């Protein structure tokens, strides 16, 4: 094991702490937490801990499955529906580190509305995640989203929507593009949306959401392609960008370097790495007071 003070490519730990990093896109065991509802999830969080510590992250938001059909495992879905403790296990183990946003199923509006009441209205979850693949994926321009967004807005929840612009067309029919998110967002101007991965092909993704002031872009999920953050700051403003790590399937290097290595001001880095996300969460966090 290398000594913990190896900082190649990183600022000093003291300076990293000053960025006050909140990670909006932590993906431990993203597609399935394990047949018992938590073992794979917890193993993946533990696997990420060295990078989390090295990056001096303060908080990370992950996306638990809550039994609304976001996996294809019927036994797990039943377990998650009937035993909420399974869903809470990781949050209880790392209460100061983890935040949660539940994965919703646009194909099952009734179950998703029930889950919103159970997990957002009653806490402790702070928002929702709409996946781009798997059995719950549905293009976010579908009318099913309207009832869900209305209820999420009532609960002051945050919406993270997986998006990709894939060369040659969508990889799956349920995937969403930034253009489809812009279409949805235009109908709910008071609700904030996060365009996960900035569409992957970010030159198109940034343009697609540029005129949607209620959409922020999230930074993870693709190679550390240079120029992304600079273009996003130039075209959207640093206030519309939130950092995501995609750990552990991506890396601290790939994701944090996009922001740290960008030719932008430290004030802008501070916004992107944490301040914008805290502002986004403030309405639902304030509700608990």
């Amino acid at each position: 094991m290398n000594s913990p003070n190896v900082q190649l490519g990183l600022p000093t730990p003291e300076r990293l702490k000053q960025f006050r990093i909140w990670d909006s896109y932590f993906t431990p065991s993203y597609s399935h937490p394990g047949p018992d509802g938590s073992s794979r999830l917890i193993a993946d969080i533990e696997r990420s801990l060295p990078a989390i510590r090295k990056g001096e992250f303060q908080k990370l938001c992950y996306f638990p499955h809550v039994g609304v059909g976001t996996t294809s495992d019927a036994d797990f879905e039943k377990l998650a529906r009937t035993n909420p403790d399974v869903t809470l296990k990781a949050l209880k183990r790392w209460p100061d580190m983890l935040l949660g946003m539940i994965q919703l199923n646009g194909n099952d509006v009734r179950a998703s509305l029930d889950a919103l009441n159970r997990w957002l209205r009653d806490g402790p979850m702070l928002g929702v995640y709409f996946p781009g693949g798997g059995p719950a994926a549905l293009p976010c321009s579908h009318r099913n989203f309207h009832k869900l967004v209305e209820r999420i807005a009532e609960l002051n929840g945050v919406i993270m929507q997986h998006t990709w612009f894939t060369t040659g067309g969508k990889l799956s029919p349920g995937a969403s593009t930034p253009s489809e998110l812009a279409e949805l967002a235009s109908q709910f101007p008071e609700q904030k949306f996060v365009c996960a991965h900035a569409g992957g092909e970010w030159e198109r993704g940034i343009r697609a959401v540029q005129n949607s002031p209620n959409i922020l872009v999230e930074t993870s999920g693709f190679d550390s392609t240079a120029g992304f953050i600079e273009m996003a700051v130039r075209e959207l403003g640093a206030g519309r960008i939130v950092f995501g790590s995609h750990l552990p399937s991506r890396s601290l290097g790939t994701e944090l370097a996009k922001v740290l290595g960008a030719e932008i001001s430290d004030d802008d880095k501070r916004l992107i790495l944490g301040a914008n996300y805290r502002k986004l969460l403030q309405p639902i966090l304030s509700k608990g007071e």
Partner: protein
Amino acid sequence: MMNRRDVLGLAIAAGAASAVRPATARSEGNEAPRFRIVDSNVSLFRWPFHRLPLDDPDLLVKKLRSLGIAQAWAGSFEGLLHRDLAGVNRRLAEACRRHPELIPIGSINLELPGWEQDLTSCITEHSMPGVRLHPNYHGYTLDDPRFVSLLKSATKAGRFVQIASAMEDVRTQHNLVRVPDVDLAPLPEIVAGLSEARVQILNHRLRSPLLDQLAKTPGVYFDTARVDSTDGVPKLVDAVPPGRVLFGTHAPFLVPEAALIRVHESGVLDDSRLNAVLAGNADRFSGKLKA
């Protein structure tokens, strides 16, 4: 368990203490006295599809220096699509002469008439220690007899060959220039037939069983530029024989800090193995080039 009020309270309290000092990551990332770093995978000049913040060689070198990178093996983005490769390699050699850290790695396109002359020029005129191939952008496969011929000639001249297995995620490529990753399946058999050959695969995302086959083939080496996941580099190091993983960033297309952080972020590699990945393996592979 923390409730929403606790989370907000922490955020507000921490906010009062936050004042980020104006400094840059790159200026603080320099641990050169402890780690010598050789980057086996950079490119110079303009990426064909958009501007890059570091596509000026002067800026790239400044950044590499700030990160403590002592030497970088530089190909040319012009080598992807240009057909006057003699001119491409001449410009590359000239640019590298202005920067002692940069070692020129010429481009060869086996689809072009007279590629043999380009190889000769790289070796004799420009004293390049190796050449870089882009089979997917140039339109041939590795079972092409011309590839075997080039590998024999380069090996006979004591030169290594780099194969860029990809330059960009296929999902984000320009719609009119969609280039699949290089099929590396023929490589083990070809390299196994040339005992002194040295081939480095750049920008790969290899998995078993092909990774296992390549790992079993002496003479095949790997870079780190697109090896992702928080513990991806240590897993690659464990999956192949010692000495076969060379640090590479794929800068300036990728942010160079990314690969540098990735080699150590999991804490798995001890200092000895870190030193091997960061420079030792590259020195042995190249015969210790002088920067």
